[in-house]
C-alpha cells in the first residue's frame, strides 16, 4: 500500500476501509510515518500519538472485520490542534512554552466524538501560541517554531491552526480539527490550499478546548475538500451538557444537496478592497465559475464598525481568559517577543465598551441575517493576501492592520463559512474562496462549495514532498 492512500479524500478512504480493501492499521502506519518523517519539516506536529493511534486502528480493524462498521470516519487517521485536551499522558500544550509539559486526564468532547466515530488520533498538531490571542505579529509565535507552508517552505502555513493546515495540505493526515476565533480555520486552509469549515457558533462543543474567547471560539474540520468537511462535521456536531453554549440542533450532513440546484450568491460591495492583485483576479475568475452554477448579486451591509465590534469582544474576553498568565507575568515565557507585552493593551478595554460591542453584535447579527436570508451564501476571497513569508509581519484584522468585514461579521455573528482553494498567487502560494451562510446553514454552504469544486480542480493539486 505504502503511500497510495495519501491525498485520498476521507470519503474514498472510508469506502476502501469499509470494503476491507484497506487495513486501518496499515493506513495509520502510513500517516504516522509521514507525520514523524515530514512533520518536522513543516513544524506541523507537537506530538505524534503513535501508541494511541495503533490501538484505535487495531480496534477499528477488528470491529470492521466483525461487521461492526461505525461510519465514514471508521479507521480514518486525523490530527487535532493542540488546544484540544487529550487523556492518556498525551500533552496538550496550547502551542505555548509555559504549557509544553501540561497533561489533562480527559478528552475534549470533539476528540471523544471522533473516537466514537472510529477515527484514529495520530497527532496533536502545532498552533500559534494561545491561538494567537496575545497579539502576535509574525509567524514565529509558537514554541514549535513558525508553521511552514507545504507549497513554499519560506512561507507561513497560517494561523492559528497552522499545523492543522499544513498537515492536511502535505498529506500527513487525511483531516484535522482546528479552531477559529477570528480567521484561524479559514486562514490556514486558504494559505495551504485545502478546505476549512468554520461551523456556526454552538454547533460543536468547545468542552476541553482552550478558551480564548468564550463567545467567539468555534471548532471545525480542515480537509482536502468540502465534502470531507461535511462528513467530519456530522461526527463532531451536537449538544453537549458540558458546554452550555452548544446547541440542541442535530446536524445530518446532506451530501446530495448540490445536485441540480441553482445557488443565489451575494458579493459584498468593496469586498476585494485591499486584496492582492492575484487574489482579486482569482476571485473574479471564481465569480465567473459561480455564475455557471447560480446567480450573483452585489449586496451591502449598513455602515457599522464591524471590525471594531468583533475586535473589542476578542480583546476583552482574551484578557480575561488569560488573566492569570498576564497578571503573573508568565507571558514573558511565550515565544513571540510582542506576546510579552501586547496582552497588557487588552487590559484597557472598558467594561462599558465591551458591553456596547456585545449589544452591537446583536444588531450586526440581525443585519447579516437580513442580507443572507435571500441568499445561499455570501462569497468572498478567503484572505486578502497569499500567505506571509516567514520573518515578515503578518497583516491582521485582529490587530487592525487589515480590514476583514467578512471575518468580523462571520465570527462576531457566529456564522458558518467554508473556504476552498481557487488558484495560486505570488510565490506559488494558494488563494481561496469563502462561502458564508446563515446560522445553521452548513449544508447550504457545503453544497455550494462542493458545486464549485465539482467544476474546478484546485483541490486536486498537492505540494510535492520536500
Amino acid at each position, binding site marked *: 500500500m505504502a503511500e497510495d492512500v495519501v491525498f485520498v479524500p476521507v470519503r474514498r478512504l472510508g469506502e476502501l476501509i469499509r470494503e476491507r480493501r484497506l487495513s486501518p492499521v496499515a493506513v495509520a502506519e502510513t500517516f504516522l510515518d509521514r507525520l514523524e518523517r515530514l512533520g518536522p519539516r513543516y513544524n506541523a506536529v507537537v506530538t505524534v500519538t503513535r501508541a494511541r493511534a495503533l490501538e484505535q486502528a487495531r480496534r477499528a480493524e477488528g470491529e470492521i472485520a466483525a461487521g461492526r462498521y461505525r461510519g465514514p470516519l471508521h479507521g480514518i487517521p486525523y490530527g487535532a490542534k493542540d488546544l484540544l485536551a487529550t487523556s492518556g499522558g498525551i500533552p496538550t500544550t496550547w502551542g505555548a512554552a509555559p504549557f509544553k509539559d501540561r497533561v489533562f486526564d480527559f478528552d475534549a468532547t470533539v476528540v471523544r466524538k471522533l473516537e466514537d466515530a472510529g477515527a484514529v488520533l495520530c497527532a496533536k498538531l502545532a498552533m500559534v501560541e494561545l491561538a494567537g490571542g496575545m497579539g502576535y505579529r509574525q509567524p514565529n509565535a509558537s514554541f514549535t517554531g513558525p508553521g511552514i507552508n507545504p507549497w513554499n517552505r519560506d512561507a507561513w502555513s497560517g494561523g492559528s491552526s497552522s499545523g492543522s493546515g499544513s498537515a492536511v495540505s502535505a498529506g500527513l493526515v487525511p483531516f484535522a480539527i482546528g479552531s477559529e476565533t477570528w480567521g484561524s480555520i479559514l486562514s490556514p486552509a486558504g494559505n495551504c490550499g485545502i478546505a476549512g469549515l468554520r461551523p456556526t457558533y454552538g454547533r460543536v462543543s468547545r468542552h476541553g478546548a482552550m478558551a480564548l474567547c468564550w*463567545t467567539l471560539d468555534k471548532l471545525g474540520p480542515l480537509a482536502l475538500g468540502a465534502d470531507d468537511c461535511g462528513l467530519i462535521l456530522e461526527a463532531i456536531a451536537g449538544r453537549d451538557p458540558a458546554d*452550555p453554549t452548544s446547541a440542541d440542533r442535530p446536524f445530518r450532513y446532506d451530501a446530495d444537496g448540490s445536485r441540480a440546484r441553482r445557488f443565489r450568491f451575494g458579493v459584498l460591495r468593496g469586498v476585494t478592497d485591499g486584496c492582492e492583485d492575484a487574489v482579486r483576479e482569482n476571485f473574479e475568475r471564481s465569480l465567473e465559475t459561480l455564475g455557471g452554477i447560480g446567480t450573483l448579486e452585489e449586496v451591502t451591509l449598513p455602515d457599522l464598525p464591524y471590525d*471594531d465590534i468583533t475586535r473589542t469582544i476578542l480583546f476583552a474576553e482574551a484578557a480575561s481568559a488569560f488573566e492569570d498568565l498576564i497578571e503573573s507575568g508568565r507571558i514573558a515565557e511565550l515565544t513571540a517577543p510582542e506576546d510579552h507585552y501586547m496582552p*497588557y*493593551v487588552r487590559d484597557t478595554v472598558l467594561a462599558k465598551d465591551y458591553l456596547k*460591542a*456585545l*449589544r452591537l*453584535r446583536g*444588531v450586526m447579527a440581525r443585519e447579516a441575517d437580513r442580507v443572507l436570508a435571500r441568499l445561499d451564501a455570501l462569497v468572498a476571497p478567503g484572505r486578502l493576501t497569499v500567505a506571509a513569508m516567514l520573518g515578515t509581519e503578518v497583516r491582521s484584522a485582529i490587530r487592525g492592520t487589515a480590514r476583514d468585514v467578512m471575518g468580523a461579521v462571520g465570527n462576531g455573528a457566529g456564522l458558518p463559512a467554508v473556504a476552498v482553494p481557487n488558484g495560486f498567487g505570488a510565490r506559488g502560494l494558494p488563494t481561496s474562496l469563502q462561502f458564508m451562510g446563515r446560522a445553521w446553514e452548513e449544508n447550504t454552504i457545503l453544497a455550494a462549495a462542493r458545486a464549485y469544486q465539482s467544476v474546478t480542480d484546485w483541490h486536486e493539486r498537492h505540494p510535492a514532498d520536500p
Partner: protein
Amino acid sequence: MSGTEASRSEVEALLALVRERYGSRLTAEELEAVRKGIEGVVEAAHALRAVRLDNADEPGQPFAPFRADG
C-alpha cells in the same frame, strides 16, 4: 476639549493604568508599543460609542439561569 484631545487624554489615562499595574516589566520601547495598541483600543471604542442604540438593544449573548439536573 476636541475629540482628538479627548482621545489623547484617554490613551494617556489607560497607559497610566498599564504603567501602574505592569510598568516594572516593560521597557520604554515596549511601553511605546503598548501605547500604539491602546490608541487602537480607544479608536475602536469611539467607533462603538458613535453608534446609537435603543434601550431595548440587549447584548447578543443572553444570560441563562442555571439549574443542575435533578
